[in-house]
């Protein structure tokens, strides 16, 4: 592939991490607007959702990073920078864990929904190396959110998870996704969403401690229910 292009000299910036593309405030604004429109127009453009998150996260991300810094487990995560990838996960070991454990249920979720943790976009437009990790962590933990909330990867499930994440992280991208996601749902589903799922997701989100402060990789054996209780997520309806 083409080597990374040199950044324009007059910007005076340099790349802070591999894949970093420094952008001016104007470019960020244009990207935020463009990616929002494109994400709505073509729901398969997951890269646009990612870009939206990065360009609008300038307030929420430092907030999240601070929450992590002030929590012992979160602090360790920031130090050790674990990544959730197929190459780092021992899938056969996780599959062998007892039913109901985090590891077993996570693998079950991945297989049932035919998803992989490796499809998460690496950050490009975040101008701070540590914050880039925070957003990366948020993306990689997303599938675990599905597992903890017991939600599948269909449109309905994704919206519910987005509501939870919006309350938890305050990321504008989550808020927008939570607000506009339901647009494509049938009325029957909207009803279930509005009356049962969203209130539960919001209550859980508010009650729970910061989900980024959980070192999931060290808790594969822990039963999902016990972890839910520990974090403060109410049992799914």
């Amino acid at each position, binding site marked *: 592939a*083409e080597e990374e*292009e040199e950044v324009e000299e007059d910007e005076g910036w340099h790349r802070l991490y591999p894949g970093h593309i420094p952008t*001016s405030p104007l470019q960020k604004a*244009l990207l935020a607007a*463009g990616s929002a429109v494109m994400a709505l127009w073509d729901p398969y453009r997951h*890269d646009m959702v990612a870009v939206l998150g990065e360009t609008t996260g300038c307030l929420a991300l430092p907030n999240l990073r601070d929450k992590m810094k002030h929590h012992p487990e979160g602090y360790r995560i920031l130090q050790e920078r674990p990544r959730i990838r197929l190459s780092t996960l021992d899938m056969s070991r996780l599959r062998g864990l007892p039913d109901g454990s985090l590891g077993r249920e996570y693998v079950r979720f991945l297989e049932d929904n035919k998803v992989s943790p490796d499809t998460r976009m690496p950050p490009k437009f975040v101008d701070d190396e540590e914050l880039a990790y925070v957003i990366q962590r948020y993306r990689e933990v997303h599938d675990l959110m599905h597992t903890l909330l017991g939600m599948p990867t269909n449109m309905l499930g994704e919206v519910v998870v987005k509501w939870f994440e919006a309350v938890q992280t305050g990321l504008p991208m989550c808020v927008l996704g939570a607000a506009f996601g339901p647009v494509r749902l049938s009325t029957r589903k909207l009803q279930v969403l509005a009356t049962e799922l969203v209130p539960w997701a919001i209550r859980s989100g508010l009650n729970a401690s910061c989900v980024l402060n959980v070192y999931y990789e060290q808790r594969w054996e822990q039963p999902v229910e016990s972890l839910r209780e520990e974090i403060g997520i109410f049992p799914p309806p």
Partner: protein
Amino acid sequence: VYQVFESVAKKYDVMNDSMTLGIHRVWKDILIHKMNPSPGTLLLDVAGGTGDIAFRFMNYVRSVRQRQLQRKLKHLQDLSWQEIFESYQKDKFNSLGDSQVIVCDINREMLKVGKQKAQHLGYSEGLSWVLGNAEELPFDDDKFDVYTIAFGIRNVTRIDLALQEAYRVLKPGGRFLCLEFSHVSNPVLSRLYDLYSFQVIPVLGEVIAGDWKSYQYLVESIRQFPPQEELKAMIEDAGFFKVDYENLNFGIVAIHSGFKL
């Protein structure tokens, strides 16, 4: 450069429309009008990828041919029905008047997209697609009536070689036409143009094609390209006569023209 166009091929047309707000279509129309091809012209369109120039050429030639046929038919008012019928038959299957285009591009992906477009739009006869390098064309000497290169020459590593090849494959009397981004001398417009290029275009690339870097490259390559007078001198060096250029949109784009005598 090759990989830039590989990833860019499928979204090329969409990106062109977005970046130039559709104005690139006008520029290409102007190029063909300047060319003013008559039926029977053999055109080589280099770096012609997705076929924009080729299709316009065919449309132009077809409409010129139509008018020719109509004028001819008018003169046949006093002939018998049989004679009219025969002459109509003969000309009917020659709607292009033997005009031909060969689209040559170094990138297979671009050619593929071009072929699909041609099929989709209904262009079939008189059109060929050839894989080739502008610096070393797979054609004999003195072959073509017109050589065009639209928004392609800035991607050639050795522009002088491409120009020499253009000279070689053109017939004596043949015309060289180059449509390319050039330099804006007006300082106010230049600042606005730079702002748009560097701030907006890569964003469009990311949003529409998911590819910031290729469009950043595109914008930078435009800045590196020789300005109008310099390109004119290079064309003259290759042996062309009556070399001239026409600025479009204050120099954002320029059409250079030269003749092999």
